[in-house]
């Protein structure tokens, strides 16, 4: 711990120490760049004006005027962005006085040659996807936009079910998905407080886990597939229509953002003044309509952008139950005030997302007279103030506050049909209890209420120092606080004796979500960017800092209680060259994802066994006695999931060619999982009647039977930091200069990813058989180090043809996956007969396997031992290797005039998936891909930029 704090502090302090001390004495005056943002002589109100290198920005006022304060001497690239306009940039040289500039922006129409439809990369390898690029993707949700990122492969959009989010990997895993931080307007979108609890819904549910022994009844599959519990942000609910730009950091995030481990998605909402925009999109799965407009509320009153969209989605039109209907609305207010000699940017946002198809139906709900009501509503409030002080030690103070509340409730009137009357326990405590028998058909009424409420506050300050003409230090520092509390009732069964999922005796005795303590997390960060400009064409930059995080409100016996967690992060780059401009990058960082509410406070597992089970047709003569054991899945030793990242990169550009290569290595050995453990249990069993006992025509009692002591092993899951994920790879991006005769830009991007998923815990195996009349007496413990390695190498070829004269953009996208493999391996590769290194007996004692015992296990004679020998078929180790496959997508947008844009896309217009013989499954396979297509109409009513274009 001390070590990490030391590293963090040292990194930041080191920045200062690298500066020659004498330069402090030479600190020169800083100057202002003031100006106005125009489009053909008309001021553009509230445009964002920024200098990326200095990490400074300011909003223009309603007259388009701006002042960037405390700008050091030198040449700076001043950039502007505003909704409805192409980004503009202007090089400004600050010598020894304030500078006044005019920046001209061109309207965002296809007659202009500057339309950007791909992601933009900055020197830290952060990718920014701007308004036109988002629009051109024709997305339904944020997940669709991700195809623009190098290394990502095209996937059919799926709105009906939650899909794990991925970052720099082949395949997917829950920890990466959970660890991807999503911030909207600076506010983290947290799903850590989500708890949808019911069998099959809570992660600790027996039926949720993959190793479920019996798939006959997996609980509420319908709801389970839609839940994102412990899996991070549900991108389906993030409508892209309210988004102006998205920044994606795959590598090392800024220390300003915490509680993430696998990359960062920064979303900026639309704001400002704009014409009425109506968007209608139809494709095979989605029907979407959006309307939004930015209003000027009058002089000095600010602007208000209001938008709403409605989405009706269904992945498979034949699955009526899967309909997903979303309505989102957002209002974003911004204004600029003058207070004394300072300016204050004020932003406030209210957003609402609701599900529309509350009553879900299909032929089965009709047939069984069931009802299924799913109600989702999320309300967000955000207020942000940024005071531009322009003082020597503090340039800006920014204070962000947000509050969101989600009401996620499922109400069901559910028909339960079982083949036989089932024995059910009633107990909420351990020990012996009376049970009862369920009828073979009944209705269960229940609801599951998940109501997480998040509060977030962040105070951020930034300062800028210059030392001489060549050194600039920008410092960003601050603190944040995040609280999550779930106020829902959890699962409530109207009649506890009519459970909805009776086939599994591990179902939980309901616990109210609001009984679970809130998660409270505080953090502080320091982030310094030291820039040394040696010459006009040589710049070195060190971007370093750290973050301290502590979880509050935890019980004192938790390992995370009073623990200060550190996250050092550093990025450095050196740019040089004039004709051949190069940039070498290096980064190292540690990122922590904290456990969710479900991981910190999991449900207890109840295991019920029948001791006496006497069922007759005569109701009065039935008697059921159960024995209940409770297992606590809570792991007080649970820690954060720490992901270590290291990356090297090289970027070059010459004569319009651009190359970017990033080599990375990431590993996490502390990912969360519900790990399956075994414990013996012994209880009395009454199955054999005593001699001369007659129980006909009366209710049998324990005393009528011979008491036996019965032992068996049960398994339950406990939250552990045991998941291991290693990611290695190389991402590349090659941009060619525009081929003028064809008016086409070509970009090739892709990646080689190698991802290994494993567990740091030994493997437990129970043969689940009998030896004589008794259950098998041992659980084997194996040092398997079982892991699966997946590899993929892909290239995406983008041919973007933009013909300004025709106001037309046409894109051909070819995706070639050169190789994709998946292989399981463990410490017993090639042996196929796995033997344990330890075993647990019925007294719950763990023994190391001695050579004598090992011989018995390896042999075939001693039935008590050889069952611990695990057999694996050769195909389990076989590499599943897919041949090269190709996908061709096309899309196009034609701007008919300033008001109307018409787009269409066809994904999978050509799909070459050769037939191959799966070595794993031993048969020929073919992966057909269905074409997916649609079209879109965008109306910008009142948009008249003809004058501007001239």
């Amino acid at each position, binding site marked *: 711990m001390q070590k990490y704090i030391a590293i963090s502090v040292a990194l930041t302090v080191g920045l200062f120490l690298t500066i020659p001390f004498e330069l402090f004495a030479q600190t020169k005056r800083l100057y202002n760049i003031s100006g106005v943002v125009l489009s053909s002589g008309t001021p553009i109100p509230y445009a964002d004006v920024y200098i990326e290198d200095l990490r400074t920005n300011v909003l223009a006022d309603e007259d388009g005027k701006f002042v960037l304060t405390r700008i050091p001497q030198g040449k700076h690239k001043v950039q502007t962005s505003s909704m409805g306009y192409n980004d503009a940039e202007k090089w400004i040289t600050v010598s020894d006085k304030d500078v006044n500039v005019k920046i001209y922006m061109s309207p965002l129409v296809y007659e202009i040659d500057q339309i950007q439809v791909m992601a933009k990369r900055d020197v830290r390898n952060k990718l920014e996807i701007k308004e036109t690029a988002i629009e051109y993707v024709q997305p339904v949700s944020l997940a669709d936009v991700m195809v623009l990122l190098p290394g990502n492969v095209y996937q059919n959009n799926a709105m009906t079910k939650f899909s794990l989010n991925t970052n720099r990997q082949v395949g997917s895993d829950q920890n990466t998905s959970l660890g991807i931080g999503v911030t909207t307007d600076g506010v983290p979108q947290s799903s850590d407080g989500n708890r949808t609890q019911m069998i099959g819904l809570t992660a600790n549910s027996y039926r949720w886990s993959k190793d479920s022994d019996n798939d006959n009844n997996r609980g509420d599959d319908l709801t389970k597939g839609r839940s994102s519990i412990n899996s991070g942000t549900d991108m389906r609910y993030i409508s892209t229509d309210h988004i102006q730009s998205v920044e994606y950091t795959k590598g090392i995030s800024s220390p300003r953002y915490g509680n993430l481990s696998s990359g960062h998605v920064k979303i900026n909402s639309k704001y400002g003044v704009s014409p009425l925009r109506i968007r209608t999109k139809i494709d095979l799965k989605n029907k979407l309509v959006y309307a939004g407009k930015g209003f000027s509320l009058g002089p000095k009153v600010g602007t208000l952008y209001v938008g709403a969209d409605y989405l009706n989605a269904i992945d498979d*039109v034949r699955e009526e139950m899967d309909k997903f209907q979303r309505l989102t609305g957002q209002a974003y207010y911004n204004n600029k005030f003058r207070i004394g000699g300072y300016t204050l940017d004020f932003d406030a946002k209210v957003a609402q997302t609701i599900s529309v198809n509350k009553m879900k139906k299909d032929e089965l709900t009709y047939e069984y007279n069931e009802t299924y009501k799913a109600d989702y509503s999320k309300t967000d409030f955000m207020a942000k103030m940024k005071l531009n002080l322009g003082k020597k030690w503090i340039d800006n103070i920014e204070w962000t506050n947000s509050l969101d509340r989600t009401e996620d409730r499922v109400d069901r009137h559910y028909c339960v049909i079982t083949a036989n009357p089932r024995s059910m326990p009633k107990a909420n405590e351990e020990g012996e209890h009376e049970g009862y028998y369920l009828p073979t058909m009944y209705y269960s009424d229940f609801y599951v209420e998940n109501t997480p409420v998040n509060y977030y506050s962040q105070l951020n300050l930034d300062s800028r120092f210059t030392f001489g003409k060549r050194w600039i230090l920008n410092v960003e520092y601050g603190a944040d606080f995040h609280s999550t509390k779930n106020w829902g009732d959890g699962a409530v069964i109207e009649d506890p004796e009519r459970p909805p999922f009776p086939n599994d005796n591990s179902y939980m005795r309901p616990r109210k979500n609001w009984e679970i303590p809130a998660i409270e997390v505080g953090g502080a960060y320091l982030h310094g960017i030291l820039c040394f400009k040696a010459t006009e064409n040589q710049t070195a930059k060190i971007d370093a800092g750290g973050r301290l995080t502590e979880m509050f409100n935890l019980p004192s016996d938790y390992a995370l209680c009073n623990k200060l967690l550190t996250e050092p992060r550093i990025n450095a780059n050196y740019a040089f060259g004039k004709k051949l401009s190069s940039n070498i990058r290096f980064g190292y960082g540690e990122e922590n994802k904290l456990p969710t509410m479900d991981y910190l406070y999991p449900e207890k597992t109840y295991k019920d066994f029948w001791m006496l089970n006497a069922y007759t047709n005569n109701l009065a003569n039935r008697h059921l006695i159960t024995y209940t054991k409770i297992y606590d899945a809570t792991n007080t030793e649970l820690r954060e999931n720490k992901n270590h990242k290291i990356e090297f990169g090289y970027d070059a550009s010459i004569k319009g060619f651009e190359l970017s290569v990033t080599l990375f290595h990431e590993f996490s050995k502390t990912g969360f999982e519900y790990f399956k453990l075994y414990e013996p249990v012994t209880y009395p069993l009454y199955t054999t009647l005593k001699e001369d006992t007659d129980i006909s025509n009366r209710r049998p009692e324990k005393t009528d039977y011979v008491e036996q002591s019965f032992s068996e092993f049960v398994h339950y899951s406990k939250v552990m930091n045991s998941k291991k994920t290693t990611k290695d790879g190389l991402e590349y991006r090659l941009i060619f200069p525009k081929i003028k005769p064809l008016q086409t830009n070509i970009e090739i991007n892709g990646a080689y990813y190698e991802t290994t998923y494993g567990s740091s815990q030994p493997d437990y195996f129970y043969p689940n058989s009998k030896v004589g009349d008794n259950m098998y007496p041992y659980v084997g413990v194996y040092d398997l180090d079982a892991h699966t390695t997946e590899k993929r190498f892909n290239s995406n070829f983008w041919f973007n043809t933009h013909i300004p004269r025709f106001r037309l953009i046409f894109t051909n996208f070819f995706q070639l996956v050169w190789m994709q493999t998946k292989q399981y391996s463990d410490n017993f590769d090639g042996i196929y007969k796995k033997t344990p290194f330890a075993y647990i007996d019925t007294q719950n004692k763990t023994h190391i396997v001695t050579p004598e015992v090992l011989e018995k296990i390896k042999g075939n004679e001693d039935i008590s031992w050889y069952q611990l020998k695990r057999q694996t078929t050769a195909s389990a180790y076989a590499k599943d290797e897919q041949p090269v496959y190709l996908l061709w997508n096309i899309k196009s947008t034609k701007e008919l005039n300033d008001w109307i844009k*018409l787009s269409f896309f*066809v994904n999978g*217009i050509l799909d070459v998936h050769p037939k191959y013989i799966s070595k794993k499954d031993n048969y020929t396979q073919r992966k057909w891909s269905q074409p997916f*297509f649609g079209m879109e109409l965008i109306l910008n009513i009142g948009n008249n930029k003809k004058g501007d274009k001239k």
Partner: protein
Amino acid sequence: MKYILTALLIFECCGVMCSFSQNHGLTHCPDYSLSPSESRANSFNTDISANRELRLSKHPVFHAIDNDLRRRDSADTDTTATHAQPLHSYQNIVLTGYSAGKAEGDFLPYEGNGSYDWRLYGHGSHNYGKAGTLSGTVAYARGKHRNIGWSTTRFPNLYWPFILTDTTGGNSQFETYDIEGQYGVNLGSIWLGASAKFKGEQAHRMTDPRLLNNTTFLQFGLDLGYVTPKGQQLMLGGGYLRNKQYEHDRYWRPGEQQRFFVVHGFGLYDNKESGVFMGTSRMHYLNGFLTDFSYTSPVQKKVCVTANIGYQRNKLTVEENEYYDLYASTTSVFTPQLHFKWQCGKTISIHLLSEHELMKRLGYERVFERYMTNIAKSTYDYRQIAEYQNYKLTTQQGANALRAEFALGRHSTFGLQGGANYLHRNEQNTFYHFEVDNLNVMPYGRADYKLTKKKFEFSTSVQSGIQSVRNHTYDVDITASSISHLDFQTCFAPYAYYAAEYTQTVAEISYTYFLKKCGIGAKVKYMNITGERLKDVGFDKPVGYYAACPMIQTMPDKHNEQWFNVSTFVIF
């Protein structure tokens, strides 16, 4: 003009071209059919002078040549013109419409006997001067085809006879997306053009087992145009065609004993692959090319001749999950067209059209064996060991027509047209010596009238014909086999459908009101078919597989059909 077999041409059924630069053509989209009924109505209801122009407009350079010539001649006055002078000239249209239709008695089971649909359609053309002419069409539609039986494959005519069927049948709900772009540019003495078309359809059936069909059509074309100094226009085009249909059938529910038959003509099916399955999936591919050559003599002359020759060839392959190319077929289509226009005087012009579509399809069945690729790991694959060519389908259809067009004043025309359409359909299996043959002729008459004023435009037409059967042969007998076959469902039913005599009438009325910068209008079309199957066309053998599928009667029945369409549009 044509019979319903237009779907045999890959893009005939999905082209959405509306290529006339004047407003009368904008609302006339004969190729855009969303149901078999509409296809029958549109192909029958033909003004042959418009038909010529439609054929020419399939060349992307046609628009560019037309625009350039129009621009060059804009100062000139065509003193020989007998047509009503266009008062209004618009390049773009947005149209929405609703159609519905139903059949009584006989129908083609794989088409269903009823439909409704709604559409949104847009077409535009823009001339960028020397940079060329860009035109495009976009359309979205959704609807339902009712009571489809004995085909789970959409557009079965494309793949016939290799289709998948089941014993359930039902209503097919569909939505379609069409997009088409054409570009033509003048490069000195020649014009170059390019075109691309895409049509995608997703259809599904909610009756268990539920179907999902994803069908896409793609066409790319390049075109070359040349105008001689004397004004003769030559256009040569070629293109690549691709069609893909993915079919996925599932949601088989306990207790249901539906079978999926892999049919290969005359009621024969692959017995091994036609079991009771939980579900099945299949992929059809059609790849082909087309060429088209057009010649037009100078249009200003009193006699103008237009000749078009088209040829298309495509190859079908069908994949099951584990097999390659279970079946295959090759289809060749030859489409000659000849049109004469004689300007008899200032007010009369005579048109003569002769056009034909000759199609030949050969079907190939392949035999596969399963073999081990790795004995140690029990890995297996399939390999082809034989191929048989037994199936053959030929169709000849076409029309010969004469039209007289009278100018009634400067802005109205009246047309009279008469002619005869014919269809000859012959299906053979050379191994079993099966043959089915239908030869029909339909003489018809047509009258149309159009009035164009500054404020409005009105047009109406009525066309009526009587189909008579000249020959019908049904020589199929497989009852000796121990396995029940589907000859009644998949062979007799189409035969019986064509062996009918009926009267077909199509009427159309359209009104457009012109505002300052645009026109708004409405159009109504109606088709009625009344007739009967021939008395001697009945099925007196045992019907294999009685099923829930919608089906025709074994004995002669009515042959009635009604269809209508109502559209509103804006032209600008």
